[in-house]
C-alpha cells in the first residue's frame, strides 16, 4: 500500500460511527422484542437512526450538487 502524505485514519476512527449506529440498531431490534409500550417507542427511535443518518448525508451531497 502506497503511503500518503495525508494522515490516515485509525481503525477506531473509521469504525467509531458505524459501531455506534450498529449498537443503536441492536438496541432497537431488542427493545421491542423484550418490552412493550415505551420500549416499542424507543425501538422506533433507535431504528430510525440508520435511516436518518444515511438520508442526512445523501441530502447533504445532493445539496452540494453535481450528481
Amino acid at each position, binding site marked *: 500500500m502506497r503511503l500518503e502524505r495525508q494522515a490516515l485514519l485509525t481503525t477506531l476512527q473509521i469504525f467509531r460511527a458505524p459501531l455506534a449506529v450498529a449498537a443503536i440498531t441492536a438496541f432497537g431490534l431488542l427493545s*421491542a422484542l423484550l418490552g412493550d409500550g415505551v420500549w*416499542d417507542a424507543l425501538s422506533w427511535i433507535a431504528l430510525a437512526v440508520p435511516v436518518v443518518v444515511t438520508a442526512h448525508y445523501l441530502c447533504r451531497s445532493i445539496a452540494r450538487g453535481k450528481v
Partner: protein
Amino acid sequence: MTSRRLRIWAGLHTWTSLICTLFLLVLCLTGLPLIFHEDIDRAFGQRATADLAAAAAMPLLPLDRLLEIARQARPGEAVRFATAVPGEPLWNMEMGASAESRSLTAIVTIDARTGRIMRTGDRIRSPAMQFLKDLHTELLMEQPGMLFLGLVGLCFVAAIVSGVVLYRPFMRKLPYGTLRVEKRRRYWLDVHNLAGITLTAWMLVVGVTGVINTLSQQIADHWMRTELAAMIAPWRNAPVPAQVTPLQDAVETALAAFPGMAVATVAMPGSMFAGGHHYDVFLSGAEPLTSKLIKPVMVDAQTGKITEARDLPWYAQALFISKPLHFGDYGGWPLKVLWAVLDLMTIGVLLSGLYLWISRLAGWRSFREGATDEA
C-alpha cells in the same frame, strides 16, 4: 491490509454478492408487501374478522362445539390443529383428510362467541399474498427452494462480513459520511459504502434470521424425532382411545397448570405434533418475549391428565425468536414502516453494488484505486 489480502477480500465480496444479488432483489421486493400482509389482506376483505353481530362480552362457546362446526362444514375431513387467532375471538381450524394427514385441505375460521364461520380458505392469506410468500420463502419450489434460499442467505452474510472488512481500507482517508460528488462512479462507491456500513446490523439480523427460518422444516422434524418421540414413548403402541376427553377440558387443564399463559394452538390426537394418545396443547407466555415462544403440554386424551410439559429446545426457540426479528411484526405499525424503509435502502445497497461491478468490468484496477489512490 496488504494488496494481496485486499484482493482476496474484494474478490470474496464481489462473488458472494454477485451470487446472491438477483435472489436478494427478489427477496427484498416480495418481502416489502409481505411486511404488511395482514393489513393488505384486511383492507381487501381477504382476512377473517370477528363477527360484528356478536357483543364483545359474549361468552365463548366450548372448543368442542367449534370442532363440530368445522367438521360439519367440511364433511369427511378431520381437524388437525386448532389455532387461536391472537387478540381476536377467532379460531382457525386446520383441516385434513384425517387427523394424521400431513397436508392441509382447508382452514375454517370460526368466531368463538357466535359459532359463525367467518372465512374458509385453503390458506390464511389471500391467494396473492400466499403467492408472494411462496416466492419469498421457497422460490415456488417447496423444500429444495427453501434450502436454496438458505444458501443465498449465507452468501448474503458472507457479503456483509467481507463488506465490513473492506470498509476499512476504503475509508482510511475519508471520515464517516463522506460522499464525493465529483465523479459519478466514485459517488456511488461512497453511497454504497455509507449505506452498507450503516445498515450492517439490520441486514445481518434479517439475513441470519432468514437463514434460520429456511430450516423450519428440519427443526420441526428433529423436534418430533427427539423431544416429541420421548414425551409419547410410553404410549407408542397404546391404542387410540375410543372416547377422548373434550378439547375444552384438555385446554383448561393445561392453562390451570401454567397460570398466566394463553393457548396458542392445539395439535389434535393423531396429528403429527401430538401422537395418537394425546392432545398437544401449545401455550405461549404473556410477556413480549415469551409470547413469541410456545410450550408443548401433553394432555392424555383418555384420562385428561397432563403427562408431560417441557420447554422447546434451544434450536426451536431460536426459530421462534427468528420469526419476529425477520418479519418486523413485533412493534406495531411504525416498526413495520421502518422495516419497509430499511428494506428499500437495502435494495439501494444491492443496486449500487451491482452498478459498481458493471462499471468496473474493464478490470480490477479501479477497485485498488478506490482503496489507495483516490482521495
